[in-house]
């Protein structure tokens, strides 16, 4: 049986100054197929998709849609040919309604006049198709990220896209919302849409994809049916080596005395928070998107402080009302939104690593002396194995993994006792992930404490000594190292014990 592929890219080459981004890559996707692309950051996935979407032009190679050769010079042409790309960064207008967003750039109009009623009706139909129960008149800014993602897909469906590219669609979603999204992908596949699925989350890829293609350094390593590609094989192909010990070994000694403790903590997002972090311990925090897990991290670093309850550091009550107090007390924060909250992208690697020290230093501290000296901070950066041609270069030019390591170096320089990580490896490729886990473990073994808030369940299970699970602003329970993903999910969903009934509105 031969089916004409809905999309066939053959011999695609693309070079940027100094880099061969793609080297004779072949890729095809059949109608009604989910074809996953796996690869580390920089493997060429995004470049390939940008060529497909008309943002870049290939140096060589051919793109055929249902057998017909096409040449795109503008993203609009790709869109009109039935290719929709849902980007990692959402492209919605927060202050406009859902309907206005779905029709952005493709408004229904007669002689320049908008037909709003028609757009509302079509939008309502599309939203129903993606399973989003939203009024088309709702402002996008009032929707959760998950629903915004659905609106993006509805936007793609408007064009009757035959080829849908999803670039890390679940990166910002928690487990429950990811499942909903994957269901939608299955429905679209059933309707004959070809789906190109890019993700770092292996369980998702093996669950959803019909075929998997692995890219590495701009070359295609192989394409296989999902059944013939165990996760181990995929990972080996992606990194070019075995990742048997992907997660660091658990610590040999039991954790030490209590370092940080919260008693009866509460604010607008959570209640009855009581937990502790011991020296040498990595405590994971799991939960759904709105469970309060992010609020817990923000409270620990003084960004959205507790309104009642007490925080103790080494047994002493601690005033924790601003990030400055947290920094001074030795609590370091590694935000999930690295670019937005973690880094000054236009400043050098060195400046970024010095941020906390300089923030706390007195106004008349001599710059470039003592701990602020370039040599001193370079040493910390090297200790963290931050790879940069020169620590004076803009940090925005480094990979996500190296940026994250530079932030760790910042808190290492500040001699923080407790580090609060939020989504520590979001958007970071697999090899760099392993290095970051290693660093976290090493940090803990030095007698410090770590809190990791993450939506990536295998990550939490692999790295944490203990996982606190949040549900609706409360702590639903704690599971020890070695727990199963199921146990955590049940607590997070509130389905442990007697199955809970859906609350009537």
């Amino acid at each position, binding site marked *: 049986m031969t089916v004409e592929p809905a999309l066939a890219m053959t011999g695609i080459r693309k070079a940027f100054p100094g880099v061969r981004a793609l080297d004779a890559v072949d890729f095809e996707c059949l109608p009604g197929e989910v074809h996953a692309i796996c690869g580390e950051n920089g493997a060429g996935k995004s470049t390939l998709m940008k060529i497909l979407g008309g943002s870049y032009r290939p140096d060589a190679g051919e793109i055929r849609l249902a057998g017909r050769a096409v040449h795109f010079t503008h993203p609009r042409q790709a869109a009109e040919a039935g290719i929709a790309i849902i980007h990692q960064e959402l*492209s919605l207008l927060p202050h406009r309604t859902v309907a206005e967003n779905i029709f*952005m750039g*493709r408004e229904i109009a007669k002689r320049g006049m908008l037909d709003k009623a028609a757009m509302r009706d079509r939008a309502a139909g599309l939203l129903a198709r993606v*399973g989003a129960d939203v009024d088309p008149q709702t402002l996008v800014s*009032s929707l959760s990220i998950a629903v915004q993602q659905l609106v993006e897909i509805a936007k793609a469906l408007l064009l009757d896209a035959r080829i849908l590219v999803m670039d890390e669609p679940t990166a910002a979603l928690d487990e429950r919302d990811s499942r909903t999204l994957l269901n939608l992908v299955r429905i679209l596949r059933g309707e004959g849409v070809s789906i190109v699925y890019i993700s770092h989350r292996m369980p998702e890829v093996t669950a959803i994809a019909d075929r998997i293609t692995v890219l590495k350094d701009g070359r295609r390593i192989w394409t296989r049916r999902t059944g013939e590609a165990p996760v181990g094989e995929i990972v080996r192909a992606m990194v070019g080596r075995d990742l048997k010990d992907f997660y660091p070994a658990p610590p040999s000694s039991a954790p030490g005395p209590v370092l940080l403790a919260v008693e009866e903590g509460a604010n607008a997002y959570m209640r009855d928070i009581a937990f502790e972090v011991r020296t040498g311990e990595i405590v994971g925090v799991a939960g759904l998107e709105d469970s309060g897990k992010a609020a817990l991290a923000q409270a620990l670093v003084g960004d959205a402080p507790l309104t009642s309850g007490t925080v103790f550091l080494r047994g002493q009550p601690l005033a924790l009302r601003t990030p400055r107090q947290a920094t001074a007390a030795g609590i370091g924060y590694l935000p999930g939104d690295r670019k937005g909250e973690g880094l000054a992208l236009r400043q050098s690697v060195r400046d970024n690593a010095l941020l906390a020290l300089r923030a706390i230093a007195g106004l008349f501290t001599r710059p470039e002396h003592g701990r602020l000296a370039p040599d001193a901070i370079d040493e910390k950066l090297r200790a963290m194995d931050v790879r940069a041609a020169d620590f004076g270069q803009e940090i925005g030019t480094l990979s996500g993994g190296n940026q994250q390591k530079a932030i760790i170096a910042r808190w290492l320089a500040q001699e923080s006792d407790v580090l609060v990580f939020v989504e520590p490896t979001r958007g970071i490729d697999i090899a760099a992930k392993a290095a970051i886990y290693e660093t976290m473990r090493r940090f803990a073994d030095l007698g410090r404490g770590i809190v990791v808030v993450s939506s990536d369940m295998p990550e939490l299970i692999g790295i944490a000594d203990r996982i606190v699970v949040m549900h609706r602003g409360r702590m639903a329970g704690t599971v020890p190292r070695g727990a199963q993903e199921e146990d955590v999910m049940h607590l997070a969903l509130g389905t442990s014990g007697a199955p809970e009934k859906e609350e009537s509105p």
Partner: protein
Amino acid sequence: MTTDITRITPRAPRLPVSVLLAGLSLGFYIIIALSTGETAQLSPSGILGLFQRMVALGLVAIGQTFVILVGSIDLSVAALISAVAVLASHVMQGDPTMMLPAIVLCLGLCLMVGLINGALVAYGGINPLIATLGTGLVIQGVLAASFGMLQGAVAREFQVLAYGGLLGVPYSLVLLAALSLAAAFVLDRTLFGARIYAVGGNPDGARLAGIRTEQVILSAHVVASLFAGASGLYLAARLQSGTPWIGRDGIYDLESIAVTVIGGTILAGGKGGVAGTLAGVLLFASLDAGFNMLGIDAFLKQVLRGAIVIAAVAVHAVRTKGHVA
């Protein structure tokens, strides 16, 4: 399929900014009029007088709203207003047959300035603050240097625009109302309007959706310049002859930005509209009229206005924050 991820937080209905602001402004005006015993200010002609104070600033501000919505800004409007007023009076020289040529010429000048501003910002990639500050300086300089040769006065018939009326309603107010409605219609109901919001809200997203963002930005600048031109023509009619400083003395550049922002249009672009801007203009007009009734010193007036601008924007910040959290 059932989804439990699509919960929507219901929001309490809120009065639109424009209604709130207009109500506050009128309330302030009425209270001052009553407390100072200037009840004549509350007669129909007094209220019309209040509205007529809105015309010059209102026209510029509508144009400014377009550029701010698209994520740009226009600092050259004050100089352009002066240029138009001077040019109109010079071309007319009191001759009513020259009215039409003068208007056409003035709007032609505005079109040109708008195209230059737009090209610099959209195609040249120059920061709009700098680009329009530059064009404004150039216009102002040319005007100051050549004013000696540009003397003149508008035709008496042209002054009807400022002083005449239909059934007691000044023509200038009719003009402001008509242009406001037209602008609101364009923003709310047309393709061009939708593109302005798209480009201002997310330039990259708009470009990827196939919108020619440069054209939209350029067009918005042309609109702003044309509205500045309308304002200049009105001022020429009111003052009989233009001088190179009427725009600058009226601080039309900064005040048009201030009222736009007070009206709820965000400087980043993509949110706001004409109704809010007009309410902001009404606030300024009411403050002016109120301060006059109270006999407040001109400099103190300026201080109070400044404070009110800050307070208004602070109120927006608080409102938006409450909405987000």
